[in-house]
């Protein structure tokens, strides 16, 4: 099992001139330490307008900075919103290639389509077509990376023959992932030979069933790229403390803050009835976890909060249901002071990581 970091870059009010800079500086320091400690990857989201929850609209810039201060850790662009109003496909191909070069072939590319009205309406994008545009984009992207000349005529974008430059550093190209929140999207990722980048905090039984179906389905996939990325990644919180009770309590404070902020988002499903967004994605579960007087009693099944032994048990359980990678959210609203957070990472690396032997290569078919 591989471990990584996952950044939304939450910035609490009041917003001062320095508050956003501090969050970015803290995150870079964490990534630098994580690289030294042996974490395998760092992911950063693309979100827009999501007040306090995520101030990370340009993850490729943050990840470039990460790459510049690290030597080994892989950088995950997760996820690129594959909707034309947000990102033109040529720009996606170009800037990911630059990031792959600058990082020395350490790029992983997550794809998705946004799930909030806040973001989609902000870009004047129709929720009805995001799944279709995502599908078109992900079929094009590997060919744009690998073909000397590329031309395309499609439903959502077209281009005459051009040489898209530069080319990605990894050969044949970076691993591709799909953000999975709504049930069923893991099947989309399997059918296209893409990794399943889980963004929900689902429970073991449900995840086990979904992973099993992913594994079955990807055997028969028609990959969009030149290799199949059959990895399953999930997201978790992390706060590790020598004193289990302190770890659980502090960790829950952070997790509850994150869940509460996430629940404030205006999902597409809430305001725009239609088939394109059949579920609220991660929000229903987060709302259950974050609501009411009993919220503090619900740590959530399998969360990596507490002492090393408790966290090891939880992660072993995730490993047993078929998860290859776990990416950790480390903070929300800067609730965990930076010094404590860095110590949590050190303790995790010292006491938990050794219990997890490598079973799969970090790069599923790609090479540097």
């Amino acid at each position: 099992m591989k471990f990584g970091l996952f950044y939304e870059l939450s910035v609490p009010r009041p917003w001062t001139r320095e508050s956003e800079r501090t969050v970015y500086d803290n995150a870079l320091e964490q990534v630098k330490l994580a690289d030294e400690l042996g974490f395998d990857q760092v992911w950063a989201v693309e979100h827009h307008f999501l007040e306090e929850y995520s101030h990370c609209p340009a993850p490729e810039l943050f990840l470039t900075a990460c790459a510049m201060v690290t030597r080994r850790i892989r950088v995950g662009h997760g996820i690129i919103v594959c909707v034309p109003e947000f990102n033109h496909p040529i720009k996606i191909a170009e800037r990911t290639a630059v990031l792959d070069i600058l990082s020395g072939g350490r790029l992983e590319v997550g794809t998705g389509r946004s799930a909030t009205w806040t973001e989609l309406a902000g870009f004047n994008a129709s929720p009805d077509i995001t799944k279709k545009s995502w599908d078109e984009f992900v079929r094009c992207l590997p060919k744009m990376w690998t073909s000397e000349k590329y031309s395309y005529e499609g439903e959502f974008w077209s281009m005459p023959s051009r040489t898209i430059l530069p080319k990605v550093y990894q050969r044949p190209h970076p691993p591709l992932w799909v953000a999975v929140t709504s049930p069923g999207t893991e099947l989309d990722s399997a059918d296209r030979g893409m990794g399943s980048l889980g963004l929900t905090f689902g429970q073991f039984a449900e995840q086990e069933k979904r992973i099993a179906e992913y594994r079955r389905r990807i055997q028969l996939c028609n990959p969009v790229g030149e290799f199949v990325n059959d990895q399953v990644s999930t997201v978790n919180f992390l706060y590790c403390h020598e004193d289990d009770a302190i770890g659980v309590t502090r960790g829950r404070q952070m997790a509850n803050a994150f869940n509460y902020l996430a629940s404030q988002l205006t999902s597409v499903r809430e305001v725009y009835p239609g088939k394109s967004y059949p579920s609220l994605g991660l929000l229903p579960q987060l709302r259950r976890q974050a609501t009411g007087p009993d919220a503090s009693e619900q740590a959530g099944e399998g969360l990596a909060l507490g002492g090393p032994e408790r966290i090891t048990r939880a992660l072993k359980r995730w490993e047993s249901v078929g998860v290859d990678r776990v990416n950790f959210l480390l903070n929300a609203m800067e609730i965990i002071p930076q010094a404590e957070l860095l110590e949590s990472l050190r303790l995790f690396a010292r006491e938990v990581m050794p219990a997890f032997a490598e079973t799969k290569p970090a790069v599923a078919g790609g090479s540097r």
Partner: protein
Amino acid sequence: MPLSGHLDVAPIASRLPVLKDLDTPAWPLPHAEVLQLAWEVSDDTLALLPRAMHPAVPSYATVCVTCYSESPIGPFNVALVRLMGRAGAHPRGYVLGAIASTPDAVRALRERWGFPAELGSVALMRYHDQIRAAVTRRGEAILEAALVNPEPISGADVQYIHSVTLARLEDGERTGPLLVQVDPHYTFHKAERGRPKLYRFERDAWNAGPLTPLHPIAASFTACDTDLPQIRFVMDADVPVAQGTRKIR
């Protein structure tokens, strides 16, 4: 923490709908039709929202016009204007104004669920190219709006956000203002979606202060069986719901 509302309840407490108790029985309401229209609205609405609630981001409001063809008090129509927000982590629509089409409906909505209902005319006109609503109060038009270009969708695609009303409970030691959650059930038989269009909105008539509808979001029209339910939760209007929520049943 997310932003919270700024509404000072004390100055308006004496004008709030009065509940004698929280033992409101449920009303089954079969064969209803619901037109809901949503717009993003101006950002200056925090003063309308109770302190217990967070604003939606972006701020948005809904107009909800319902024809109840069968009820314990006979047929009636209701129009609501709601400022949408969050009660803790849950999406909720705070009811700013309500117009009901019969005196019995006005009385019941005020006394049983705390809706700030007033008497008026509420009309719902179903055409093939649009579904139109018109509301008057004291003979003056205060709302004209439509769902334009309706297209069929599945009822499973529709989600109605529960309402929150602000009322005054007069029940011995528990007397005082409170927020009442009104959370109907829905069984959908037909659903359509279209674009909302607003022809007239007299915001003062809806207690909507500076609220200005700006960017259209979506409109839906459904045929459904629904209800006005028993009261399950009430909340203190001035403190976060995590501390101020009381479960009634």
